[in-house]
């Protein structure tokens, strides 16, 4: 018997921001966009120019970001790969993302391959409950299965975030937070770069367009999803799930509706549609006898033709 409790009893750090947040922010390509912006700052003044006295703050801000967000590795072990590759390694280990064998980054033998399946089965379960709530003919709530799944998810997440994962994630959270806050600098974006869009996602898309870096069009939903999943997974890791606790989740309908709408746009799986298209019907009649499945064209032996 596998003792689930012992792995679940591992404590999670306070004030933690979940690696899933880092993942969805990373997928907006903000890191590469900023890389090009900083590169431009260093080598040319034909896109924007900052003057040493009036724009002292902006220059300092960017230079600090440059050294801390795009550093060279200090140790010989670290110099075998870049920080970005280490980040991909984290996503692979925690969530099983980026398993494309053509991508070059250091891999762990053990990784969390079932993350997405379990997560989506939880979402489907919740979606069924949320959209059948108050229904008079069919209640699809199943808190027992939900609590099982949640426990499963919790144990797989907690046991995969070991060694330096927590520090690595905190590093990237801080870096991404800084990059995001640069998008909020009206002086830099509006006056210097001439970007008049409103909202981080729009500014980032415009910035990507300026530097020729593809930024996904659904960036807004990626930011949303990052925040929602961060809360959800943190909660998953911190709660001791039982049937009652799982049933409580069904009450947060608004939270999950927002989460699912962002999820359907980013991950292209629409739980609302899936739930809606379950048509109530009578008991399914299964065929009694073994069904013979035809296997390819039957070859009829032919006698020798004369």
């Amino acid at each position, binding site marked *: 018997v596998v003792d689930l409790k012992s792995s679940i009893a591992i404590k999670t750090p306070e004030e933690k921001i979940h690696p899933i947040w880092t993942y969805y922010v990373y997928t907006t390509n903000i890191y590469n966009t900023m890389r090009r912006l900083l590169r431009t700052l260093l080598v040319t003044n034909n896109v924007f120019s900052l003057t040493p006295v009036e724009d002292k703050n902006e220059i*300092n801000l960017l230079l600090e970001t440059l050294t801390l967000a795009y550093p060279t590795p200090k140790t010989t072990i670290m110099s075998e790969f870049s920080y970005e590759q280490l980040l991909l390694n984290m996503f692979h280990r925690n969530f099983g993302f980026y398993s494309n064998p053509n991508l070059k980054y250091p891999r762990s033998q053990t990784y969390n391959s079932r993350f997405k399946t379990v997560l989506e089965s939880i979402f489907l379960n919740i979606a069924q409950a949320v959209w059948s709530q108050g229904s008079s003919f069919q209640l699809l709530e199943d808190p027992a299965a939900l609590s099982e799944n949640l426990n499963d998810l919790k144990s797989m997440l907690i046991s995969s975030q070991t060694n330096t994962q927590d520090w690595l994630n905190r590093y990237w959270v801080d*870096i991404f*937070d800084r990059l995001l*806050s640069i998008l909020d600098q009206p002086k830099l974006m509006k006056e210097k770069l001439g970007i008049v869009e409103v909202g981080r996602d729009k500014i980032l898309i415009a910035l990507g367009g300026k530097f020729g870096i593809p930024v996904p069009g659904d960036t807004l939903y990626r930011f949303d999803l990052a925040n929602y999943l*961060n809360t959800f997974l943190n909660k998953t890791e911190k709660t001791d799930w039982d049937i009652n606790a799982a049933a409580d989740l069904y009450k947060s309908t*608004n939270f999950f509706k927002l989460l699912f709408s962002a999820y359907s746009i980013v991950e292209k799986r629409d739980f609302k549609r899936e739930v809606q298209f379950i048509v109530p019907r009578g008991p399914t009649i299964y065929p009694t006898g073994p069904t013979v499945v035809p296997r390819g064209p039957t070859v009829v032996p032919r006698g020798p033709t004369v």
Partner: protein
Amino acid sequence: MSTIEVNSNVQEINPVQRVWAKTFLQFVTLDYCIQSEIERLFLTLENSDVVVLDDMKNEIRNNPYKLTSKMISKLEEIYNEFDGLDTFLGEDSLGMGDSFLNDLTNYYISILLQQILSQVLVNPRKLYEMQTIETEEEIKSASDSFGTTNKIDDDLVTYYRDLRNEKNKEMLETATENSPIDGEIEEILITVINSIADFSNTSEENILRNLKASYFDEKERENRLLYHLFQIPKTNDETLETDEEIRETTSDKYEELFEKSGLNTLKTELSNLIPFDFYGIINFDIFSDLMTVWNQLFQENDPEVINTLIGNLPKILEKFLLSKTESTSCCEDIKYRHNCLLIITDFIQKTLTPLRIEETSHLSQYPSAYNCLVSFRSLRAFKNIGEWHLNEYLNIEKRDRSRLGFLYVCYWCLSPQPELGILFGKVFDWFGKKIIDKNYGISEDEQSKINPFSMFPGSLERSIGSSVSVIDMDYETDKRRFKNKESRLQKPGELEKVLNSDGVRWLI
């Protein structure tokens, strides 16, 4: 009613928020002191020629924070009379002149300190950074010797205090762009930094922050101060008629508050700077130099805690409504749930008026020390004209304690344990047994059976009980956390500090 210690884990409390809450308590204390001092200053002798007109009394009630030239000349008259009396009586004098000068000095000091604290309220992180020292080894809880004393080694505390004072002196010099500061002012400012958000009078709490060994001492001091600030008035308080009676009863009351709030050392040092005669006090000007240097230290506004406060205030009533009363066999809380909800709704509606919420959100949008003073000053504000003495303000018959309630709610929101039961218990006591019996239909016998903690389980941060959609609240908390962090990261120089404090600098 005993307060249950729900969360004694100091590590979980956001330290900057803690600094803010404690500074806030000191701020409210000073307000008491100002009210009490100015009240005592304008007390006259019986059958005296010097009379304070009602017009002036009203003016002082409306704004006790500023002395007009008319008021000062009135004060001069009063002082001269006292002084004359003292000289006349010679050896047997009551020392009324001296006590008058003492009050006047303290009045000016209180006003100054309130201005100093208002800067901290807008930017608590700055103070936190000044009070924190980063050293290789942490202060360990016990002494090395075998003779355990249950106390931290004094030498160690002194050593850290010296270390920190050195650091702060350097910081002061950088803030004033390396121009030399007057030695007196520098010393005073060091004491200021040590005394704010510290009730121990020896800057012990700031140094031993996050140490479990000193947590309960700290808690006890805080509870004592809270008791004095937000105490429950006694029913049979006799109204004080003559000025003499008031002078006797209120004497030492505010001095005690100085002591309790940990500002005593600071007050003594400041009063040593001021000459002890009437014109010397009135014309004293070192305070403005002090404020200039202090303002240079706090040039940025970073109202992260005020943002949290404004996020919390509108949620309070909802939390009470969502909190689920468990019905158990031993207490019949569920029976009176509706009545108790009425009580708390009435309280919140009176206390957190839209005007006050708007004022606070204005403060978080336009954070400045001045706006801070406007929002959190004046216990008397929004009160009927005609109530003159602080005693009367606390009198049970005059039930409008809404301003006091507002200040308490602000503190409660940001305290380490914003348990719903704590606030409800306080409100229950404030309303008084008679009122609750009459207006809310719970008889006095039944009242004693009500346990606030089982009536409204849960806290502002997270609610216990199964009726609540907790994840929405978690999401709001997360969002606030991101916002706080981003507001820090918008400034150059902050990224490195954040990375350092997260302990991830080893990566780079």
